[in-house]
C-alpha cells in the first residue's frame, strides 16, 4: 500500500441529506449512542463502588453529588441509556435468531424499544422515589 503524500479529498456519498429517517435507522444509531454513553457512565459506577470501599466520608461526597440536581440528571440519563440499550440488545437477539426481519415487525420492534425504555425509566424512577420516601440523600 503506497501512502499518499497528502490526503486526496474525495466526495462523500450523501446520506443524512437524502435518506428518510426511518425508525429502524434512528434506533440503530441511538443504540450505539447509548452504548457510548454507558461506556462513559461506568465512571459513575466505579465512583460509587470506590466511595463505598473507602469509607463514610468518601461515600457522603458521592451521595451529595448524586443527590444534587446535576447528579440526578446524570443518573436519570444513565438509567434511560441502560434500559434503552438493554431493550435494543434484546431486539438484536431477535434478529440473531433469524426472526423479526420483516419491515413491519422491525419497525414495531424499534418503536417498542423507545416506548419501552421511556416507560421503564419512569417506572424505575417512581420506584426509587417511593422506596424510602425521598431520592435526595
Amino acid at each position, binding site marked *: 500500500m503506497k501512502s499518499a503524500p497528502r490526503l486526496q479529498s474525495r466526495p462523500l456519498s450523501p446520506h443524512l441529506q437524502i435518506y428518510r429517517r426511518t425508525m429502524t435507522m434512528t434506533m440503530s444509531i441511538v443504540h450505539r449512542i447509548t452504548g457510548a454513553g454507558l461506556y462513559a457512565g*461506568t465512571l459513575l459506577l466505579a465512583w460509587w*463502588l470506590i466511595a*463505598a470501599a473507602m469509607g*463514610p466520608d468518601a461515600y457522603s461526597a458521592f451521595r451529595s453529588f448524586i443527590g444534587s440536581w446535576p447528579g440526578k440528571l446524570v443518573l436519570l440519563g444513565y438509567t434511560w441509556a441502560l434500559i434503552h440499550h438493554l431493550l435494543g440488545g434484546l431486539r438484536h*437477539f431477535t434478529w440473531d435468531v433469524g426472526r423479526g426481519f420483516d419491515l413491519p415487525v422491525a419497525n414495531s420492534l424499534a418503536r417498542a424499544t423507545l416506548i419501552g425504555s421511556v416507560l421503564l425509566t419512569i417506572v*424505575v424512577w417512581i420506584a*426509587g422515589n417511593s422506596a424510602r420516601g*425521598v431520592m435526595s440523600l
Partner: protein
Amino acid sequence: MNGMHTPLNHVRGLGSAKTGTTHFWVQRLTALVNVPLALFLIASLLALVGADYPTVRSYLANPLVVTLLLLLILSGTWHMCIGMQMIIEDYVPGRSAMLALLTLNIFFSAAVALACIYAVLKIGFNS
C-alpha cells in the same frame, strides 16, 4: 512460489484480522449475561436508595452480591471495550489516531474494571 516467503500483504498487516467471528460471539455472550446482571444492578440500586452507609456497606459485603457484581464488572467492561472498538474503527480518520484510541480504549476498560473489582473485593473481604 518458495515456501519460505511470506506474502507481502501479510507482512504489512493488511487484510482481515480473522477475529471477527470471535468478537461477534463474545459480544453476544457478554450481552446475554449482562441482561440479568444489569437488572440485578438496577434492583440493588433501588433497594439502596436513601440507605445509610452501614446498610450499603453490609449489602455490598454479601458474598452473593460480591459475586454478581464481579460478574457484571467483568462482562460489562469486556462488552463495552469491544463495542467501543467498533465505534473507533468506524469513525476515526487516520491510522495513527485510530490505533492510539484503540489502545486508550483497552487501557480505560481495564482500568475501570480493575478499580471496580478492587473496590468490591475490598468491601467483601473487610466485613
